């Protein structure tokens, strides 16, 4: 509720329903009417003088009674008003009172949290209304510049100081909140740069309109916090900085913070485990929500969920996709004030089979001469070739074996995982293709052997080259033909996910595996040792590269350097785990956060197609084609500013359609705000007014500056009135004196400070005392006689 008195003053209430308490103000009158006091009776000889005094002073007494009743009623009214959290908007008045030209610089927060809606109004809309009202209340000669805190796009909206109010209002009207996180520091620095631009005479006033989200304005990172502090302090030093907090009371919020497939590669007809993570940001009572699973926009599951405040819950859903192709999974949480983070999308391509490309260096008369033989057999122990050099060995995996020389001919679009088995060396083009393949989410497993050209591998795939290798290859460690001196595996507690299948199995075969030779590898900083030899040298190294994974086995994946493939039962499951782990983020490139680009390599022949956004807008890929750092062509779109499923359709020759899931960054989902004092001491360290209260009416700009809050003022008035009431009920004149003292103190204190206020109060008290003494009727004394008084 708002009481708006033109552009000068607006009174609002944070909890208007508490104004019902104003009915309490009728209590004194009701008590007076219904429960008249039973007076005690007493004979009195001088009753005639009482009657005369009553007759002469009845009007005055009635007036005093009315005044006292008004004071008492006002006290109750003020209590009700104070409970309703009154807030006074004087922002316009503040501006109107100053005739100096003002160069306004507006900074409006447009991040995801500003989309939060309370009682039908978004934080962003409240903030925009504040700025609109500021514009409307401005004077001729005032100018305006506008910046927006957002993720993508430049922060500066109006760079040149604009003096035409309709233009500024129109620009404000066009603004909409984004689904992004913000770049606060960059925006503040841009504002600082604008402030350094000369604008003529007048003063600069920076209005920062934000919800003061804690995660944004008091970040955990001390470096970021320091940069924010310095930027705000610099702005404060160059302008009059006013912060409008449109966040309002702390709002609890639930969000779907994660959605992923636990099955590395989804295979048609096979169960796929999907996992959603739901968090409740905030405090208070647990939230009851409904969670819905949608597959390809079709509801497949709905269940209730209780979210504990501050807690996170994971939900699993297993689904079998009937057919291969592009699929879209969405988890929907029943709504709250911020519905945009209650949805999460997952673009999930489903394959008929998992495609594994085996690359070896040898062929021979016997099948097991091939360096890929044991891996192939492990992946498909009993399968038959369905085509030359290819065998379908299970319902899930299709392996294709090629010689290392043919790798250059393969475009690596089909396989999900590539296994290099003792490939002597790779040329730059092959390395480039492999790097692009892995960066796009593909898996790469590297097995070594006697054919390896260590120097070439380190140069082309090491840190100086494509940086694919998890470690630098070193010298050969050999057991000199003696099994006694051979290396054995040290699982180190099976801590790595690769070894999780062996955990708890005493006779898993790993400990009995004998390795005669291996290349000593020096792990890179980004790598992790999954399995080591008892000598301490790494046996299996892993690293993440782009969206994909690279796994390096420092011994051979055939029987030349180790007995592992032929004598150990652990080899087949380990090969499966290697492929599974390497492809575990196969489709990570298909799912991004808002603002992150969609990229896809395309062939030189691909020239047409469209990118379809969730809102139905289309972008021709001719506008999105560019070259990557390696010189290849790619589709690159930064227009992922809206959450949802984007569909990239490439026309001939590839004629494919791919889905990309874009989700909001849930770091904006925690709506906890930074309080004014905390902001002041923890971040700003400056004394800027912070307008912290708001309400959901048309005029949301409300005044509650820390140190001068309306609530405290009301409390002070209440205490003063209570004192006046107590004094007035005792004696009317002292009550009036007290009221006068309080008024004089407040008015003088307001204008000239506390000392002046105290002096004014004492002056009123002294004047009243003198007046009372002068008018005192005290000539009679008990001993006075006619002679004495003559």
């Amino acid at each position, binding site marked *: 509720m708002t009481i708006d008195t033109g552009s000068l003053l607006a009174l609002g209430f944070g909890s208007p329903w508490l104004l019902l308490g104003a009915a309490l103000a009728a209590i004194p009158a009701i008590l007076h009417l219904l429960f008249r006091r039973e007076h005690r009776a007493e004979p*009195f*000889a001088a009753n005639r003088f009482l009657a005369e005094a009553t007759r002469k002073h009845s009007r005055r007494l009635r007036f005093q009674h009315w005044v006292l009743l008004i004071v008492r009623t006002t006290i109750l009214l003020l209590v009700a008003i104070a409970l309703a959290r009154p807030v006074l908007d004087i922002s316009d008045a503040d501006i109107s009172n100053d005739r100096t030209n003002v160069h306004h610089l507006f900074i409006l927060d447009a991040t995801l949290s500003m989309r939060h809606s309370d009682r039908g109004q978004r934080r962003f809309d409240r903030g925009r209304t504040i700025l609109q009202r500021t514009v409307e209340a401005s004077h001729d000669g005032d100018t305006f510049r506008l910046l927006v805190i957002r993720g993508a796009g430049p922060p500066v909206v109006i760079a040149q100081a604009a003096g035409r109010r309709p233009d500024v209002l129109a620009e404000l009207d066009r603004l909409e909140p984004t689904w992004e996180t913000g770049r606060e520091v960059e925006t503040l620095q841009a504002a600082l740069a604008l402030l350094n631009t000369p604008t003529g005479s007048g003063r600069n006033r920076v209005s920062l309109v934000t919800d003061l989200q804690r995660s944004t304005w008091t970040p955990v990172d001390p470096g970021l916090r320091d940069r924010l502090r310095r930027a705000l302090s610099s702005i404060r030093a160059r302008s009059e900085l006013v912060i409008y907090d449109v966040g309002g009371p702390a709002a609890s919020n639930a969000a779907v913070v994660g959605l992923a497939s636990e099955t590395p590669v989804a295979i048609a007809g096979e169960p796929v485990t999907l996992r959603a993570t739901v968090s409740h940001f905030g405090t208070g009572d647990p939230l009851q929500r409904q969670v819905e699973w949608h597959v390809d926009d079709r509801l497949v599951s709905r269940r209730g969920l209780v979210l504990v405040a501050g807690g996170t819950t994971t939900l699993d859903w297993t689904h079998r996709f009937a057919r291969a192709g592009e699929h879209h999974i969405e988890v929907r949480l029943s709504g709250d004030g911020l519905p945009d983070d209650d949805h999460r999308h997952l673009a999930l391509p489903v394959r008929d089979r998992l495609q594994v490309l085996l690359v070896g260096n040898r062929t021979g008369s016997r099948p097991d001469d091939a360096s890929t033989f044991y891996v192939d057999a492990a992946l498909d122990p009993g399968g038959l070739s369905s085509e030359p050099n290819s065998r379908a060995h299970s319902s899930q995996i299709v392996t294709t074996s090629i010689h290392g020389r043919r790798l250059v001919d393969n475009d690596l679009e089909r396989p999900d995982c590539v296994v290099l088995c003792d490939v002597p060396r790779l040329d730059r083009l092959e390395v480039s293709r492999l790097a692009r393949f892995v960066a796009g989410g593909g898996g790469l497993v590297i097995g070594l052997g006697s054919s390896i050209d260590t120097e070439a591998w380190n140069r082309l795939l090491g840190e100086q080259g494509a940086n694919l290798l998890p470690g630098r290859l070193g010298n050969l460690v050999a057991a000199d033909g003696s099994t006694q001196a051979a290396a054995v595996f040290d699982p180190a507690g099976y801590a790595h996910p690769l070894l999780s299948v062996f955990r708890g199995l005493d006779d898993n075969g790993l400990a009995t595996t004998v390795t005669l030779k291996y290349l000593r590898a020096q792990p890179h900083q980004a790598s992790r040792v999954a399995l080591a030899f008892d000598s301490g040298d790494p046996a299996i190294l892993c690293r993440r590269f782009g969206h994909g994974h690279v796994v390096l086995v420092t011994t051979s994946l055939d029987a030349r350097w180790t007995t592992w493939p032929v004598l150990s039962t652990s080899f087949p499951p380990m090969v499966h785990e290697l492929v599974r782990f390497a492809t575990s983020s196969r489709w990570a490139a298909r799912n991004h956060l808002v603002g992150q680009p969609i990229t896809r390599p395309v062939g030189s022949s691909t020239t047409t197609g469209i990118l379809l956004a969730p809102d139905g807008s289309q972008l021709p890929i001719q506008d999105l084609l560019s070259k990557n750092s390696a010189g290849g062509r790619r589709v690159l779109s930064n227009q992922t500013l809206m959450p949802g499923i984007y569909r990239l359709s490439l026309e001939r020759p590839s004629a494919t359609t791919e889905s990309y899931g874009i989700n909001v960054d849930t770091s904006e989902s925690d709506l906890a705000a930074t309080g004014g004092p905390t902001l002041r001491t923890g971040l700003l360290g400056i004394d800027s007014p912070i307008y912290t209260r708001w309400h959901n009416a048309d005029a949301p700009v409300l005044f509650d500056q820390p140190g001068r809050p309306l609530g405290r003022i009301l409390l002070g008035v209440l205490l003063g009135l209570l004192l006046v009431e107590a004094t007035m009920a005792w004696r009317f004149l002292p009550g009036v004196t007290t009221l006068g003292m309080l008024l004089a103190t407040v008015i003088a204190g307001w204008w000239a400070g506390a000392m002046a206020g105290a002096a004014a109060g004492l002056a009123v008290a002294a004047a009243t005392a003198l007046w009372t003494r002068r008018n005192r009727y005290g000539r009679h004394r*008990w*001993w*006075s*006689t006619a002679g004495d008084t003559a």
Partner: protein
Amino acid sequence: MTGDLNPATQVARTSATSLLDSNLQSRLAGLSFQTRRPLEGPVTGRHRSRQRGFSAEFAEHREYVPGDDVRYVDWKAYGRSDRYYLKEFEDETNFTCWLVLDTSESMSYRSGTATESKLDHARRAAAALAWLILRGADAVGLVTIAGKLGRLVPPSTQPSHLDQLNRAMLDATPAGPSGLGAAFRDLATRLTRPAVVICFSDLFDDLNETAAGLEQLAWRGHDVAVLQVIDPAEEDFPFEEPTRFLGMEGEADQVVEPRALAEAYRVEFRRFLDDISSRCRSMRMDHALLRSDVPLATSLPRFLEARLRHPARGAAP
């Protein structure tokens, strides 16, 4: 009287002696009651008489008229002026004092802060003055007033008369309205010789009527003194809580918020006292306040000393 077996009378007799206490007597022992104007008494006394006589105190000359006693011709004056003048001398006599005691209902009032009612205070004051006057061989009488003249005890100079006066005062019970004005007028017609009239009353009555009655007394040559007896609560009005004040002489009850009305009441009461004081002064009467919470040993000497300091006040023009 000694054979009276009535218990009430016994109590009254016992209380009669208690109206005077030794402290008050010792305080008044060095004082005397001074008349303010010449009076006539039945015997020679210490007070000036309206009659000219043959005492040693020369008063004035007056021209001889036939029939005058030639013994009093001032021959020295005849030698100087060749005219006959007679020498006249002041006559000294005793006086009669009437104690007028208001026994109306309002005189029975006693507040919480007072040690006795106004009537009791007035009784003790009257007894003390009677004792003082009788000690000077002057005559003292008593009349009570309660709406009209009540009991009248004729004046006497006998010291034993004090006991009769005290008993009469104790026998008077407070009742009815004051009716002071009519009573004073009635008294004025009854007193044939000028006398000292001392009124003990709160004067809570029609002030114009009361003043008219007092004026009658003064006009007939009486030396009138008004000792207004009030209760401390009537002057201070110390009440705090809302109270229904009940009228004692037929006045309407007043429901009052004392804290709101106290100052106005005090103003009214003080105006009343001022009015009485002013009227008494204009009629050349003494007026003094006797608060019932102030010991008579303090208030009566002040009254008497004031009369001694201004003995000529009230002299006939």
